[in-house]
């Protein structure tokens, strides 16, 4: 029987991390050299973990599926990175950042983890500045900040609309430095197919060399998963097409509990679906809501060009419904409000599934140059994709699947339920509760990798200094490699008629319709049935061309989609179990009279962590109660 122990240290909230850090055991430099650590993923959390651990002197092996670590999807984060520097003198503090995140997450995250994330945020900014990350600056040469959704202070550091790129490249630089020094070995173009567990501890991974198809064994004293979120389960999402759940899912199959799978953020400002062949949705940063105003026509079936619709006939519905926060309400609230207007028949565009994001007033006030300085690359991106010039007419936007708050369950040390297996960044569940606030993902990923994991993993490895290098001829490696091979053979053997992508699209549609922005008991039950049917069909009808022993992009996709059926099913199971609405999880049955999410703190103030029991088996739910000692649970209001 698994018992969840969050290992939250005792003591006052503000002292927990510093006190705990000083109590953690250390590994002496001579012993670090003898210890191997595997890091899977080279996004902000993976690359920061790998470089920080390399600097400490561990032997690090790091893996990514792209041709270079610099391609990881952190690169696409646009708007910014939060920190509690209070440079604007507007009342910000570590406590305020913590409070905003707890409230923004609709009281479904751990206080201690969130406080720590807020606490290390300031070091992250210092670190990036020292590495030459060119954040925006004011005329005095100081770092500039801007506002983001769900908060009333200005704490978001940014580099135009490509903050993720700049932070990732900074981290990629530190990683490259360690690779050059030989402390980190880089393995590009590898997919992790399985986790190897020996005597209950994570000891290695099985990878597929994507260029040759060869299965490879890699061993270590500890394994860190920094493999991102599973938002591509929707097929159409703001994520890179290669982003996937398979590494985390392999760990889940091997016993790592998966927490809050149904908490998926639907981002309110994406470019809407334009055609049937669409392969992804492109985000328009939340920072745009600083200056852009969201509206729909007051009349249904409005046919006029948006510029022809007079002010009085526009419904600025966010400003109307949420006067205190206006266009800067959190993402879940903004997304549902857009859906509500479109479902009621006020949506714009051919499909009626979009709303306007208008910069007319901002351009009048700040000039075109002012807007261009802040969002130039985003406007350009919009223009390229849609062919429409947003300096001259409003953007059209609609919500899209974006970020997964759910992920592998971890304790305060960022360790999963498998000893020696850690999870950092978006692949864990820990800091964002039921809804993530903008610009806190880059913050969490860098904090986890640079300033948290290097301390906590040492405490575990202090017991491993006598463990000799793990040999890859152990029978657990044989078994794991055999299982991976059988799965691939099974996929190749189907030899049906339909492409992998066609299944992925259909799965995505099922989840978007039944486990998307609004969920219901009936809908979720139906969703599960439909997923089962589709999965059956997949294993009878899918076509994976060529062979497994070569570079085969279709096989890569097939392996990932095969796992997505299970991920989708668990999302529905969790959404069905959670008889309340909170954050991004909105159950039709549980809403206030004004249509806002209605939480049920008495029964659901817990983390839901699931234990894998085999394909098609209902997973076993374990609950970690959430204790709130420092904030008062109240209805989240942005009115």
């Amino acid at each position, binding site marked *: 029987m698994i018992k969840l122990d969050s290992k939250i240290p005792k003591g006052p909230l503000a002292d927990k991390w510093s006190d705990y850090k000083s109590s953690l055991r250390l590994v002496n430099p001579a012993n670090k050299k003898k210890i191997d650590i595997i890091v899977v993923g080279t996004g902000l959390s993976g690359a920061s973990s790998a*470089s920080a651990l390399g*600097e400490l002197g561990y032997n690090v092996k790091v893996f990514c599926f*792209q*041709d*270079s670590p*610099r*391609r990881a*999807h952190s*690169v*696409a984060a646009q708007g910014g990175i939060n920190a509690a520097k209070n440079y604007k003198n507007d009342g910000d503090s570590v406590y305020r950042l913590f409070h905003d995140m707890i409230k923004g997450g609709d009281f479904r995250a751990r206080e201690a983890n969130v406080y720590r994330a807020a606490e290390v945020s300031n*070091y992250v*900014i*210092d670190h*990036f*500045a*020292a*590495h*030459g990350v*060119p*954040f*925006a*600056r004011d005329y005095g*040469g*100081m*770092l500039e900040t801007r506002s983001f959704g769900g908060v009333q202070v200005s704490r978001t550091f940014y*580099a*135009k609309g*490509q903050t993720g*790129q*700049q932070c990732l*490249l900074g981290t*990629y*630089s*530190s990683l490259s*430095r360690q*690779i050059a020094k030989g402390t980190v070995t*880089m393995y*590009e173009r590898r997919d992790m197919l399985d986790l190897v567990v020996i005597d209950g501890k994570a000891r290695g991974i099985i990878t597929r060399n994507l*260029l040759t198809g060869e299965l490879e064994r890699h061993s270590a004293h500890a394994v860190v998963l920094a493999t991102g979120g599973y938002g591509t389960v929707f097929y159409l999402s703001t994520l*890179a*097409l*290669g982003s996937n759940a398979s590494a985390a899912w392999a760990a889940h199959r091997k016993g790592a509990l998966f927490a809050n799978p149904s908490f998926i953020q639907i981002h309110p400002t994406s470019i809407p679906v334009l*055609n049937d*062949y669409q*392969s*992804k949705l*492109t*985000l328009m940063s939340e920072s745009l809501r600083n200056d852009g105003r969201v509206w729909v026509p007051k009349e249904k079936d409005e046919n006029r060009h948006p510029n022809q619709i007079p002010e009085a006939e526009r419904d600025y519905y966010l400003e109307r419904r949420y006067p205190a926060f206006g266009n800067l309400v959190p993402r879940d609230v903004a997304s549902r409000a857009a859906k509500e207007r479109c479902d009621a028949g006020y949506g714009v565009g051919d499909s009626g599934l979009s709303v306007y994001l208008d910069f007319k007033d901002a351009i009048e006030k700040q000039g075109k140059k002012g807007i261009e300085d802040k969002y130039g690359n985003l406007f350009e*991106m919009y223009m*390229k*994709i849609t*062919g429409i010039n947003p300096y001259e007419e409003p953007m059209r936007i609609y919500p899209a699947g974006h970020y997964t708050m759910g992920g592998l369950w971890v304790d305060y040390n960022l360790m999963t339920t498998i000893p020696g297996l850690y999870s950092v960044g978006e692949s864990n569940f820990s800091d964002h509760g039921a809804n993530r606030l903008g610009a806190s993902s880059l913050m969490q990923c860098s904090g986890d990798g*640079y300033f948290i994991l*290097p301390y906590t993993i040492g405490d575990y490895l202090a017991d491993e200094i006598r463990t000799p290098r793990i040999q890859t001829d152990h029978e657990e490696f044989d078994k794991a490699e055999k299982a991976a091979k059988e799965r691939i053979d099974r996929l190749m053997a189907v030899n049906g008629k339909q*492409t992998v*992508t*066609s299944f992925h699209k259909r799965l995505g549609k099922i989840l978007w319709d039944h486990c998307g922005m609004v969920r219901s008991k009936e809908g979720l039950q139906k969703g599960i049935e439909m997923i089962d049917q589709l999965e059956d069909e997949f294993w009878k009808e899918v*076509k994976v*061309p060529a062979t497994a022993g070569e*570079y085969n992009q279709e096989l890569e996709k097939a392996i990932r989609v095969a796992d997505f059926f299970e991920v989708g099913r668990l999302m529905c199971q969790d959404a069905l179990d959670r008889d309340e609405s909170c954050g991004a999880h909105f159950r039709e049955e549980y809403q206030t009279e004004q249509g806002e999410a209605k939480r049920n703190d008495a029964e659901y103030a817990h983390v839901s962590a699931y234990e894998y029991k085999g394909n098609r088996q209902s997973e076993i739910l374990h609950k970690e109660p959430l204790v709130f000692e420092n904030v008062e649970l109240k209805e989240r209001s942005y009115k």
Partner: protein
Amino acid sequence: MEFKLKIWRQKNASAKGKFENHTLKNVSAEMSFLQMLDYLNQQIIESGGEPVHFEHDCREGICGSCGLYINGRPHGPVTHTTTCELHMREFEDNSTIVIEPWRSKAFSVIKDLVVDRSAFEKVIRAGGFVNVNTGSAQEANNIPINKKISDRAFDAAVCIGCGACVAACKNSSAMLFVSAKVSQMAMLPQGKVEAKDRVEKMVAKMDEVGFGFCSNTYGCEYDCPKGISVEFIAQMNREFFSARVCKSKR
């Protein structure tokens, strides 16, 4: 829309490649270039063939994975646009589109349209970083940086490492790529400390891994999807010579 496609097919690095012809019907003007290739691959797979391999990931112009030679131009006909941001409305209906991988001595073909860009990694590893360990950074606002300089560093830092500059250059020069990193770091006080050492190491590595000299044709700037200026090459040359001069004085 309908297109005739001439696509480079090559089984692996050692195989001999050739152009393959396809006629693709019912293409929508709204499709991106890569969606058009997805659509083609869908048809190839359904008819029992092997799909065309090409690299892509974010599909929003920032990861730098995609990069095709389209009608003889890296990333195709639209300036400041990556292959994934290119849309079919930019092409004339019923025209022929020639699609090739990057052609460069330093980037060998892996399969079809996929090339090996690991030479870029080697150059970055030679010195494209600041030697500061985690934990030793000072308070960020202790070092003010003139906004103009900071903005200029940002203009260099937007490089996505796609390789178009190399593909555009008849000498296969990577000087735009290398100079973007060298200049970004050299301009900022944080990177200045090691600027001289850095430029020497990166330039030496750039030569070693097979990139050629600058051809002075500015093709790299013209085809760079992020519009990085060749002025950074001039800046790198300045940095390089000043490093050399300082060294000879020492």
